[in-house]
């Protein structure tokens, strides 16, 4: 019943973009952890989480992001977020996620803001 995520990552301008295709719920835990761990194996310091604007996101999924932020903080990694609908930008802000992960309007804007020269 639950949509399975396809979570991929790539690196652009020294920023690792973790693209979360599909919904973000508790079912996303394994693929999200795998993508994050794979990214860490490449020694990243900047991570951009790129969401699907049509995604269904619930509090179980947001909890996974909070856990990822905790791990990123331990590793002194910068985290950005893009791709969220206006509604979920509001919800992420509501629970404090945006205190530790800046929200950008697009991948390009995020890369420009997060790149080493900025």
């Amino acid at each position, binding site marked *: *019943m*639950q949509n399975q995520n396809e979570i991929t990552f790539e690196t652009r301008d020294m920023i690792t973009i973790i693209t979360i295709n599909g919904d973000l*719920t*508790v*079912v996303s835990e394994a693929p999200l952890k795998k993508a994050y761990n794979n990214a860490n194996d490449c020694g990243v310091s900047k991570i951009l989480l790129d969401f699907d604007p049509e995604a*269904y996101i*619930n*509090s*179980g999924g*947001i*909890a*996974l992001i*909070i*856990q990822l*932020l*905790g791990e990123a*903080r331990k590793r002194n990694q910068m985290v950005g977020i893009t791709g969220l*609908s*206006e*509604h979920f930008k509001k*919800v992420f802000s*509501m*629970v*404090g*996620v945006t*205190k*530790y992960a800046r929200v950008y309007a697009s991948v390009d804007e995020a890369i420009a803001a997060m790149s080493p020269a900025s």
Partner: protein
Amino acid sequence: MKAVKKSSEIMRMLDERTLEINLPNKIGYERIAMECSSSFAKLVGFSRDRIDDLKTAVSEACLNAMEHGNRWRSDARVIITMNFENDTFSVSVEDEGEGILDMPDEPDIDRKLDLLQTPRGMGIYIIKQLVDEVELNQRTKQGHVLRMILRMTAK
């Protein structure tokens, strides 16, 4: 004592203003209630923003009912009743549990990142932020009801 409803009907209109949905206690099925609430709210003229608020609130309420009220029991059901009257949309989510005995703390991102608070437990808080009124721990013969109210004008 009224028997627990085990109807096979998933959805029915109780009258032209009231829709009832009877869901199995399985993760993922909350999306049926979300889409129904969205369609109903759109039909009666709610804005896109308010509909998004409603969908998320319904999702969180259903998931709470399934997990905490019904404890993921496969034989339990979640009954959602939606009504629109006098510019007010109300959604009641009924489970077979005892109610919210231990209200979760308000989410604190710093405490969560410091592992002093569970990363979960945000559902009730999110609901309260998104709807105009929330009534918790209403008891019925079947169990517990969480009721949410949205009015036509945005919060």
